[in-house]
């Protein structure tokens, strides 16, 4: 039964990934930890493998629809390790809770801005 739920949640994760351009990890990690029973670290690592596969197929499809700027994507991807280092530095300077709340605030701000922009369009 929990296997079936894991399959359904992963289907939903892929669907969300295709619709809004994310990897789907937000749903893959709980599917792997809650329904399959992996630990948090193993769940996140296994989720990364799934994210890469989903993003590859999603990119292939979106490229067919003419929705991918490859050069820009390569620059963003290539520079992301800088961010990992910055993240480590930030987590040494600030408590985890402050970072969580700061990103939550940023996410809410971006959500509001997206909605405002879409309504004006």
């Amino acid at each position, binding site marked *: 039964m929990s296997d079936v739920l894991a399959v359904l949640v992963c289907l939903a994760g892929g*669907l969300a990934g295709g619709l809004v351009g994310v*990897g789907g990890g937000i749903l893959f990690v709980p599917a792997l930890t809650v329904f399959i029973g992996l630990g948090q670290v193993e769940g996140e690592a296994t989720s990364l493998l799934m994210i890469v596969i989903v993003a590859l*197929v999603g990119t292939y499809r979106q490229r067919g629809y003419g929705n991918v700027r490859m050069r*820009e994507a390569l620059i963003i*991807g290539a520079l*992301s390790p*800088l*961010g990992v280092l910055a993240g480590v530095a930030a987590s040494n300077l600030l408590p985890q809770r402050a970072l969580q709340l700061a*990103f939550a605030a940023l996410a809410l701000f971006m959500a509001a801005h997206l909605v405002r922009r*879409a309504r004006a369009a």
Partner: protein
Amino acid sequence: MPDPTVAARRNELLRLAAIGTAAGAFSGLFGVGGGTVIVPLLIFWFGYGERLATGTSLAAIVIVGSLGAIAQGGIYGNVHVVTGLLLAIPAVIGVVGGTAVQQRIPQQAVSYLFALLLVAVAVDLILK
């Protein structure tokens, strides 16, 4: 006399670098994946339409995710390869369906869905 096209290119590169850095930082810190920041910033800073932003985001995630997997050393240690590959099957069916549906709905609907996702991420972070 500075060349305006050179300045514009530098500006563009700086913004892309900022997006890459933000994506890496947030995925490293919270395991939320880069897409949550890549898509909105491509829309806000580059004026991308929602479809172009989400397509480009997926391509960037291939690289961010691969680097993340390598950095974790997870390929050999923590990744449950068979489980991951098996569960990737429904996920891939989902992403093919999701991208197909996305071409048939108004772009603004994608923004509303994304806003919903961001609210869910925020709630999750606040409740942690």
